[in-house]
C-alpha cells in the first residue's frame, strides 16, 4: 500500500485528464489541489479525473474534489470522475458524493460524454 500520491496530467483532445494514483489524505491531497487549481485557472472548464489507480481517499481528498467541482460549476464547467475502485466508491456513497459527481465506470466512457452511471 502506498503512502504517497502521484498526480499525472494528459490531454485527450481538448479535455484534460488528471490521474490520481496512490493515497489521497490530508498530507498528499494538496498536490492534487495544486494541479486542479492550475487547470481551472488556466481556463479549463471540463475536467476528467481518472481514479482507477487511487487506492485510498479520506475526507481531505473528498474536500479537494468538491472544491474543484464547486469552482467549475460556478463558471459553467463540469468535472467527471472515472473508474472508482469499490472501496473508493463506498467512501463516496457514505459521504453522499455519489449524488454530487458525474461518475463513470471507465475513463473512455467519461471521455465519451455519455450519461454517468
Amino acid at each position, binding site marked *: *500500500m502506498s*503512502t504517497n500520491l502521484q498526480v499525472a496530467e494528459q490531454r485527450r483532445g481538448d479535455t484534460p485528464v488528471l490521474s490520481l494514483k496512490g493515497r489521497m*489524505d*490530508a*498530507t498528499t491531497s494538496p498536490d492534487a489541489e495544486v494541479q486542479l487549481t492550475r487547470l481551472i485557472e488556466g481556463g479549463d472548464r471540463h475536467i476528467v479525473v481518472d481514479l482507477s489507480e487511487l487506492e*485510498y481517499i*479520506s*475526507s*481531505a481528498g*473528498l*474536500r479537494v474534489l*468538491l*472544491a474543484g*467541482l*464547486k469552482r467549475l*460549476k460556478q463558471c459553467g464547467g463540469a468535472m467527471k470522475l472515472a473508474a472508482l475502485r469499490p*472501496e473508493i466508491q463506498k*467512501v463516496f456513497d*457514505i*459521504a*453522499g458524493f455519489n449524488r*454530487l459527481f458525474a461518475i463513470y465506470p471507465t475513463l473512455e466512457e467519461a471521455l465519451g460524454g455519455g450519461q454517468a452511471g
Partner: protein
Amino acid sequence: MSRETRRITVPATLEHLATLTVTVTDLLREHGIPEKNVFEVDLAVDEACTNVIRYAYGAGQGEVTVECTVTPDEVEVCISDHGHRFDPLAVETPDLTGGVEDRPIGGLGVHLIRSLMDRVTYEYREGKNILCMAKVRERGANAGESDHL
C-alpha cells in the same frame, strides 16, 4: 496469539500521519484482518488523527498517541491527546442531501468514522481527549483470519 496491543506517540503534525496509520494497518495485516476492514480502520484512524493534528493544539505543538489492540473478537483503536477539550461525537452530521452549491466543504471526517466503525466512544480523562473506536472481526471462510502467531 489471542491479543496484541501496539502503541505509538508522535508529534501532532501532518508529517507523522502516515506513521500513525501504518502502525495500525501493519498490526491488522499481521493478524490477517481482511483488506476491506483494514481500509475501513485505516480511514477512521486517519480522520481522527487528522482532526487532532489540525485542531487539538496550537501550530506545531503537542503529541498524539494511537493505541491499537487486536483480539479474536475485534479491533480497537484509541486516539488520545492533551489538547483542548473537544468531543468530536458532539458534532452534528452534515446535511448530505444538498446539491453542490449548498454542500459545505468539510465536516465529513466524524461522519465517516461513525459509518465505518461498529463502536465509537469519547471521554475526557486526566486532561486527555480519548476517542476509542472498534470494528468487530468478521467470521467465516472469507475472513481470511488465522491466529497462527
